[in-house]
């Protein structure tokens, strides 16, 4: 059921970017938060927090009605919800790092790897399965081009934590590449 307020906002000739964002993605934001937290009130809190976090970065968003913005909103809400989930259930924190056994030799030299450019989606999916926030943070940094302090503000962790997770995300990806030497 579309709320009367949303309808009213939809009929206005000119809306602010924030209003447009909420009108366009309010439902998907709420659904994403509810899916993780399974609690109406906490899901509301997450949506509010996400909007407050996104607001200072609205200028960077060129087009509200586009898939990139939709994915961005989902990523922010998801990470905000995960943070609340982790705080709420400390004993059920998502596995912190299942990567150590996967990564054998960490080398920065990409000549060691086949980049598997035709399997980008699978690689991204594998990374997300390993740890969702790795994929999200990597995406915010490289695809959306947010700086570390901006990512910190968006997903509610410290800047130091962002750097660590980013570093681990990169390592994870290299690990997933398999370490197979190019040409062999």
């Amino acid at each position, binding site marked *: *059921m579309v*709320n009367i*307020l*949303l309808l009213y906002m939809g009929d206005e000739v000119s809306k*602010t970017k*924030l*209003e447009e964002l*909420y009108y366009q993605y*309010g*439902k*998907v934001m*709420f*659904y*994403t938060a*509810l899916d993780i937290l399974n609690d*109406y009130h906490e899901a*509301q809190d997450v*949506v*509010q927090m996400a*909007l*407050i976090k996104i*607001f200072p970065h609205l200028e960077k968003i060129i087009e509200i009605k586009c*898939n*990139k913005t*939709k*994915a961005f909103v*989902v*990523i922010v809400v998801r990470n905000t919800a995960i943070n609340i989930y982790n705080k709420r259930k400390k004993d059920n924190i998502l596995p912190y790092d299942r990567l150590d056994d996967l990564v054998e030799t960490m080398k*920065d*030299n*990409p*000549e060691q790897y086949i*980049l598997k*450019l035709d399997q*980008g*989606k699978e*690689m*991204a*999916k594998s*990374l*997300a399965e390993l740890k969702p926030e790795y*994929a*999200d943070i*990597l*995406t*915010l*940094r*490289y*695809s*959306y081009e947010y700086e570390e302090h901006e990512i910190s503000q968006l997903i509610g962790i410290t800047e130091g934590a962002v750097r660590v997770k980013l570093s681990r995300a*990169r390592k994870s*990806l290299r690990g997933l590449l398999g370490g197979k030497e190019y040409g062999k």
Partner: protein
Amino acid sequence: MDEHNESLHNIMESYYKYIGQCHVENVLWEVEKVQKEIDLVQIPLSLDQWFESYSKNAKAEEERLQKRHNRKRMLSKAAMFIVVLFVSFSFLTFTVDAVRIKVFNLIVDMKDLYSGIKVEEGIGKANTEHVGNEYYPKYVPEGYVMEGTSKTKDSITMKYENAAKESIVFSQGPMRTEFHFDTEASQLTDVTINGVEGVLVEQSQSDNNILFWNNQEYSFYIISALEPEILVQMANSLEKK
């Protein structure tokens, strides 16, 4: 980082960007899978109400910041204009009169009955120290002798008289001294005394002429019924004792 490593680094950066874009597609695909469920979601009224309030505050805050930004911009433009004006004026002043160390702006404030004449120091190095030595006119018209002098804290007035009791009053005071003269039905003429701008006031009602000018230290005036040319001659003959 050498060139080779830099290239490799750039390759990996691009790769991460590519994976990020793939991840975005994955996220969208996941959302699409549950789109029907999303469409059925009912957003709580309290969330809508919260957003309405937040949005209003956010708008007001944006407008306030925009106004502040505009104000800052205008102020900086005004400041820049003043700086440019100041620099241009300074440049003009120093190039026109390189010998003098001070520039004086003669300000004549025309009021209905009286004119106030004051010398204001303009741009340049200021020297307002009272030296302590008075100026005297070397040339005094024939028949006139000094009748007396009067001193206030800063100014000195000398009175010359002839046998017919016709007088010449000569006064000097430090810079910024303001003198008031009756200029009703008078004619004001710009004159030059020793290369400095002065003012001649020819009063029709009293037959008196007032000559006002300054040098680097003092402001002077002479009041007399004598012809303006004589007053100017007296003024040009000033010297310190």
